[in-house]
């Protein structure tokens, strides 16, 4: 009670932190992107966010170990972590000399709690809750990693693959053989992006 900074009982959200705010990473954000105000962008390497990307509240984009690029129309849900984390790089993958960059293609959906560590993900992929994509992995186009699925370090996932179970894979032939399906999926994704853009108040100014 003696500390005047801690007595704001009515409005705890307005209490300012005593710590100095973390330095902003160098960001290049398209004005058409949607970034919720409680999304976290952190790190020292550049972060590029393309147009119509939607970052939900409490998503984390970390560029501590390498640059992060988020493609057009990506949806990143809450608590997803995109970007290589410091411990995994320092302990195991000493062979990688260049900073591991994380690249999300166009129209990628990253669901809740997903961890993505320095890898490339192709267009139209869907990564379901709590999946893990290891460092240096390459995920092709229109892939799907189901809930709790895991793509190990440095693995390569071909186009149209579904990763499920304990490292099992199969090819989504509907997606592979029917161009109309892919077009439909793209159209649906676009509508989803538009819907979320209307729901989530964007706060790009905070990061640029």
């Amino acid at each position, binding site marked *: *009670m003696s500390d005047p900074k801690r007595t704001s*009982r009515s409005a*705890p959200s307005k209490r300012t932190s005593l710590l100095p705010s973390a330095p902003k990473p160098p960001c290049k954000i398209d004005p058409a992107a949607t970034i919720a105000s*409680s999304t976290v962008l952190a790190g020292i390497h550049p972060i590029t966010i393309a147009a119509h990307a939607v970052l*939900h*509240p*409490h998503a984390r984009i970390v560029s501590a170990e390498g640059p992060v690029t988020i493609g057009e129309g990506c949806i990143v*849900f*809450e*608590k997803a972590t995109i970007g290589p984390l410091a411990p995994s790089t320092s302990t195991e993958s000493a062979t990688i000399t260049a900073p591991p960059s994380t690249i999300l293609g166009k129209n990628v959906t990253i*669901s*809740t*709690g997903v961890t993505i560590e320095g890898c490339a993900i192709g267009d139209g992929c869907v990564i*379901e*809750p*709590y999946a893990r994509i290891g460092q240096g992995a390459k995920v092709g186009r229109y892939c799907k990693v*189901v*809930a*709790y699925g895991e793509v190990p370090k440095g693995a390569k996932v071909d186009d149209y693959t579904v990763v*499920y*179970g304990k490292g099992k894979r199969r090819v989504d032939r509907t997606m592979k053989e029917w161009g109309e399906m892919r077009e439909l999926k793209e159209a*649906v994704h676009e*509508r*989803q992006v*538009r*819907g*979320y853009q*209307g*729901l*989530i108040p964007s706060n790009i100014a905070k990061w640029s």
Partner: protein
Amino acid sequence: MSSSRPARKSSKGDYIETDSGNKVSRKALITGTPNITLAGRTVLMPDVHLRGDIVRVRPPPPTTTTSTTSLDPSSAATAKPSSSSSSQSTTAISIGKSTIIATSTILRPPARLLRGLLQPYPLKIGEQVLIGPGCVVESAQIHNHVHVGARCVLGAFSVLRENCRVLEGSCVPAGMVVPPGAVVAGRPARVVGEVGEGFGVDGVGEGWVEGGELREVVRGIR
């Protein structure tokens, strides 16, 4: 969590208790508060995400003035009450009495495309439901006395009926309807059995049983 550590002395508790007995952790992450209904004696533990902002927004006023003029007054008259009622009924998440949402669980109302627009649907959770830590809930409805284990993923528009039990680490696929009294498990979740006869029936002096009344448990949380 750690019983060895002495209880932290703080003038303000870790939970904010409302008039109706809801206990909401100060560390719960809640967006869109006006669209969330807690019935009373509901516990939201730390790091619980409630996405109340994913709610059906009122459709934009009809701009099609091509309709005949004779319809205009009636449409204007009907538009007003409907718009006011829709603004009142925007509920994203409703949680019943004595329900506990454990740590790091995410409740996100499901959404799907309807007539070319993304339409979120309300996420309804019944009474005496326990949702374990680390779950992702996108269900359309969870009925009363449901027990969901830790680290489950409940897919979009799934429905969990009364007295069912989801074992930990399961992934209930999108749109699945879990029948009453079923036990489901696995990735993807399948019905693996039925709950016993005593499910949810409180024994005498045995404390809490799965699916049972959570009132005493809620009372113990502070």
